C-alpha cells in the first residue's frame, strides 16, 4: 500500500508528520498503515505531528482521534503534538477539545513523555 505520509520509526516510537491538505482517502490509509505497523513492530508510542496544519476542523479532529484510538487498541500510546495556537483557538470555539487524547507542545516533549511513561494500561 502506498502511503504518501512518511511514518518514521524511532526505536519503539512511530512518528507521523501530517502534511496539510491530506485527502480523506490518505487519512484512512494512514490509519490502516499505522495500525499495521504498531502491531508489526510492537510500538510503544505513536506521535502525530500536526504542526504543519493551520486549521483543524471537525473532520480532521475526528480522524486524528480515530487514529489515536486505533493505535491505543494496538497497545501503543498516542500523542498529538504541534497543534498551532491559531488552530487551538479555533478548535475550542468549535467545541473540539480532543477529550481523552494526549497532547504535547512538540515532538521533543512527546518523546520525553513516551520515554518515561509506563505504557501498559496507559492511553
Amino acid at each position, binding site marked *: 500500500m502506498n502511503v504518501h505520509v512518511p511514518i518514521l520509526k524511532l526505536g519503539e516510537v512511530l512518528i507521523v508528520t501530517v502534511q496539510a491538505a491530506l485527502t480523506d482517502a490518505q487519512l484512512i490509509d494512514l490509519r490502516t498503515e499505522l495500525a499495521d505497523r504498531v502491531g508489526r513492530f510492537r510500538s510503544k508510542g505513536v506521535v502525530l505531528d500536526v504542526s504543519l496544519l493551520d486549521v483543524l476542523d471537525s473532520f480532521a479532529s475526528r480522524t486524528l482521534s480515530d487514529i489515536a484510538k486505533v493505535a491505543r487498541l494496538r497497545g501503543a500510546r498516542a500523542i498529538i503534538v504541534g497543534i498551532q495556537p491559531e488552530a*487551538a483557538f479555533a478548535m475550542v470555539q468549535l467545541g473540539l477539545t480532543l477529550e481523552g487524547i494526549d497532547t504535547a507542545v512538540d515532538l521533543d516533549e512527546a518523546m520525553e513523555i513516551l520515554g518515561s511513561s509506563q505504557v501498559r494500561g496507559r492511553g
Partner: protein
Amino acid sequence: MSVTDPNTAPQTLRDHPGMKDFFSTYEQRVETLNAGLMVTVGRLPSLDALVRRMTPEALAENNRLSMDNMRKAIVHGDWAPLLERQRSDGATYAAMGIPFREWFDLVAAFQSSLIPFLVADYGGKDAVRLGHALTAMNAYVNAAMNNIAEEYLKTKERIIAQQQHAIHELSTPVLKLRDRLLLVPLVGILDTQRARQMTEQLLSAIRDNRAKVVVIDITGVPAVDSKVANHLFQTAAAARLMGAQAVITGLSADVAQALVALGIDVGRLTTIGDLQGGLEEAQRMLGYRVVAVEA
C-alpha cells in the same frame, strides 16, 4: 452594506445649475487662488509641514491632478476619480495626524477667496446666475468635506481600535516565571474581546516557551460571572490542546460557590485559592521541589 454608490455624486450636485460657472471661474483664476491658499497653509502647522516636504514639481502635479479630477466631474460628468481622490485624501490626513480643523480652515479660505471672483464674473450680469454659482460652490465644498470627513473618521476609528488592541496586549502580559512555567496575571474586567486576545497571546507564548504549566491568576478580575468562567474554560481547553496544563488561581471560595450555584462545573478547571499556592503547585507539577531556605 451602504446603499449609495460611493462613486456617484448625488443628483443635486450633478444637476446643479451653477456648477459649470463655479468651475469656470475657478479654472480661470486657479493660479491666483493657489498662491493665496499657500499663504493660508503657512498658518496651519500640520498642513504646512506636509507641503514643505513636497518638491515644487510634486506640488504642481498634485494641483494639476486635482484640477483634472474636478473637470472630469463637473464638465464631463465622471465623478468617480474626484470622489475616490477625496476619500484617499481623508484617509491620508487621518493617518498622518493632520487635524481636521486645519483642512476645514483651508477650505473656508478657498471659499472666501473665490467669492469676489464669482461676483466679478457674474455679479453685474445676472443676480440669479451669481446666486447659482455661489450655491454651487457651497454645495461642492460641502460634499467634498463630507466625503473627506467620512473617510477621515473611519480611518481614525480604525487607528484607535488598533491602539486599543495594543494597549490590551500590554495590559495582559504573559510572564515567563521559569522554564516551562507561564503566569498570566489578569487585572480588570475580562470581556470577550480581551479574553480572546489574552488567549491568543497565551497560546503563542506556550508555543514559544514550550510551556507545560500556565497559571492564570484572576485575583484582579472584579466580576467573575458565567461568561468569565466560560472564557477560562475555553482558554484552559486550548492550552491543553497545546500540551499545557492551566491552573486558575485567585478564585475565592465565595466566587466558586456562586458559580456552582449558577450550574457551572468549576471542577472542570484546575483551581487553587491563592496565587502563592498556585505557583507552588505549578512548580511541583513541573517536578521542582519547593523548599524553604533557612534565613
